[in-house]
């Protein structure tokens, strides 16, 4: 089965090409139908692959083809199925199929409906090909391709100036990270002689990376940090988190698929995929943990005060991705991936439910919503499932994964990060239930819009229900009840004797942390407390929230303005860059070209001066000619300067 894994990305590509040929006027039913069916088949194949890999623990099956020869080295492309990859395939295809179905309702009657599906299919293909990459080069290629799809889809409504700006911003900000990653990949290629994961890992763990006389550890650290830059950009970690909330200008299914479940998780996936490298560079791993922790806290604080429903969820995504990074950083490899999986389900669910609301109300402002529980019960209860999962309430999916992470953080000796995580958990519970109460309970704040509200039909309901089921139950893939099945599955990648990594690295990766009932209770309590506070402020319409905002005016403003990070960047990087560009232009036009013009001017002035020797008197000319002749004759005769020997 594993050797057919290439079919998984191929089917969406087929769908893409097919839609490309159908053109821009294709009927919506065919477009959506083909896409959903092909992706669903991909999902089924992924399940088989997942199953097949699980049965033999050393299944790093790699199939490569020669792509390009460079000197004595080869660049290869191909596919590789590891346990991690197999899990990712399942997550990506499942969420993709559901989002493709949901979009049929959400994008109904959009002028560029087929184009939307083209882009989505291209994205699904790229994401799957990214996951299956056997080497860093191919990963980078599809890493950029998913970025491109994100750019196209964020800017899908290109005629909106905000969408145009957001698309540009998302591409450029992630490009900053990608550039670091580009350098990191090249560094690893030069130091180990190959782009292949296995070659790099064995060189890194054996300490045989060599580059310009740097020690292997230094090379590994520098390369890991550079590669982590890519992950920071893609997964919207601090300080490159600013693009993700703006990316909400794209259609909501895009936010669910790309900016919640799959693409933004690619950064986490990358760190997980390159884990042996990070483990052999402890400083880099430490950085990952701190960046993750800071991001988790910062984003959750910003999410507290946002008014736009999608932005709240977007900051929530940033924060949850921070959790995953933190987990990887403190050494809890399996928990980071586990949280990636549960988050994919419940965050896609939250976005799709929010999409359902936006579709019904045609607004994203929380303060124009309210009371939707009565009109949209299905959306309400599925959103609630997602919110409970996000808040980490027993037994929803988020509880298991988040709690594992918090427990591992404390157990691995990072009390500060644990505090960050706990505080973020409180904020998370608060902001998501703030959204829930504002949107679904109480009285409608905008009657006209409320009247108009309705559920979106079965194409939108089915994905919500399925995802709600996963958001509720996915946590049970990795609990003491099934002896941590997912952990054991993931660790099989590094099981002896086929692991490329050294033994101590494997020991680090395979480290497990026992359940701690006390900590579990603490985090659930924190979550419940957050929900309680949110309920106090927002369940019944009242002035409590406004009063609190007034009372804590400064923190409120700081949170509402996203810690002024955007403004700082705008002033420093964008403004600075523009000023520098203007300076270069000035230098180009006035100094360099000025010099050139000056040379030209010198020529013309010189010519104008010499013109006066042109008297028009032929006798003057011949007199000068005679003088010249005499000079030469004199030189010749008196051998001045040794002429003629």
């Amino acid at each position, binding site marked *: 089965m594993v050797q057919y894994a290439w079919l998984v990305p191929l089917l969406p590509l087929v769908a893409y090409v097919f839609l490309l040929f159908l053109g821009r006027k294709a009927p919506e039913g065919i477009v959506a139908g083909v896409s959903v069916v092909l992706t669903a088949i991909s999902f089924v194949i992924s399940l088989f692959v997942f199953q097949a890999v699980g049965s033999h623990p050393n299944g790093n099956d790699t199939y490569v083809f020669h792509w390009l020869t460079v000197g004595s080295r080869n660049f290869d492309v191909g596919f590789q199925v590891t346990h991690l990859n197999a899990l990712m395939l399942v997550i990506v295809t499942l969420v993709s199929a559901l989002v493709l179905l949901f979009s049929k309702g959400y994008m109904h009657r959009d002028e560029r409906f087929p184009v939307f599906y083209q882009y989505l299919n291209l994205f699904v293909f790229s994401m799957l090909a990214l996951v299956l990459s056997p080497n860093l080069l191919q990963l980078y290629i599809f890493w950029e391709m998913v970025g491109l799809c994100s750019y196209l889809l964020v800017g899908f409504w290109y005629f909106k100036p905000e969408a145009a700006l957001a698309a540009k911003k998302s591409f450029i900000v992630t490009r900053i990270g990608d550039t670091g990653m580009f350098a990191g990949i090249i560094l690893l290629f030069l130091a180990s002689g190959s782009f292949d994961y296995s070659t790099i890992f064995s060189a890194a763990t054996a300490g045989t990376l060599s580059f310009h006389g740097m020690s292997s550890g230094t090379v590994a650290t520098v390369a890991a940090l550079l590669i982590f830059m890519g992950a920071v950009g893609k997964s919207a970690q601090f300080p490159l988190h600013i693009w993700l909330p703006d990316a909400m200008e794209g259609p909501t299914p895009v936010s669910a698929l790309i900016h919640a479940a799959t693409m933004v998780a690619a950064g986490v996936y990358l760190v997980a995929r390159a884990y042996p490298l990070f483990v052999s560079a402890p400083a880099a791993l430490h950085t990952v943990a701190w960046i993750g922790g800071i991001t988790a806290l910062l984003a959750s604080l910003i999410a507290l005060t946002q008014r736009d429903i999608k932005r709240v969820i977007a900051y929530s995504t940033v924060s949850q991705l921070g959790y995953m990074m933190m987990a990887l950083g403190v050494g809890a490899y399996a928990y980071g991936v586990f949280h990636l999986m549960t988050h994919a389900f419940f965050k896609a669910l939250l976005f799709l439910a929010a999409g359902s609301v936006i579709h019904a109300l045609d607004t994203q402002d929380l303060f124009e919503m309210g009371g939707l529980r009565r009109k949209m019960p299905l959306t309400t209860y599925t959103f609630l499932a997602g919110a409970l999962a996000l808040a980490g309430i027993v037994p929803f999916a988020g509880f298991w994964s988040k709690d594992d992470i918090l427990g591992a953080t404390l157990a691995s000796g990072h009390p500060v990060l644990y505090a960050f995580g706990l505080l973020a958990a409180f904020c998370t519970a608060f902001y998501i239930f703030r959204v829930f109460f504002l949107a679904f309970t109480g009285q409608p704040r905008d009657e006209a819009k409320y009247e108009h509200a309705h559920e979106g039909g079965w194409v939108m309901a089915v994905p919500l229900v399925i995802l709600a089921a996963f958001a509720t139950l996915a946590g049970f893939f990795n609990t003491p009840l099934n002896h941590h099945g997912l952990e054991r599955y993931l660790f099989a990648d590094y099981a002896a004797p086929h692991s490329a990594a050294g033994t101590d690295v494997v020991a680090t990766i395979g480290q497990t942390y026992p359940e701690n009932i006390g900590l579990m209770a603490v985090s659930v309590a924190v979550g419940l407390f957050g929900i309680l506070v949110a309920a106090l402020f927002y369940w019944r319409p009242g002035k409590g929230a406004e009063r609190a905002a007034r009372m804590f005016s400064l923190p409120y403003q700081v949170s509402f303005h996203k810690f002024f990070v955007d403004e700082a960047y705008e002033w420093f990087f964008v403004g600075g860059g523009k000023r520098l560009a203007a300076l270069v232009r000035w230098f180009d036009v006035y100094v360099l070209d000025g010099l050139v013009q000056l040379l030209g001017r010198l020529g013309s002035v010189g010519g104008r001066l010499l013109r*006066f020797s042109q008297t028009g008197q032929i*006798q003057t000319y011949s007199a000068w000619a005679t003088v010249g002749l005499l000079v030469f004759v004199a030189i010749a005769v008196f051998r001045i300067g040794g002429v003629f020997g």
Partner: protein
Amino acid sequence: MAPANFPIPTGSLLALGVLLFCIGLYGALTKRNLIIVLVSIELMLNAANINLVTFSRLGVAPSLSGQVFSLFTITVAAAEIAVGLALLIAVFRLRRTSEVQDLNVHKW
């Protein structure tokens, strides 16, 4: 050393050539009238002819070729003076002048 049956020494002939050339050059460079300038050019040509004839008697294999060449020069000079006079007349008809200084259309 000049041949014995030729009484005039080479130096005198060359001196004559130089004198004639200098007079011609002076005339060509300073005289205002075009006709005088043409005449001066003739003087210079004749100076060259004297040199040709003089040197034809000298050298390893003295021959008549120098004298023949001077005949050529005289012919060419005659043709040249004809062209020169024709130009002069054309200029005079056009510009009503035969002064060299007046012909300065190429000034600056």
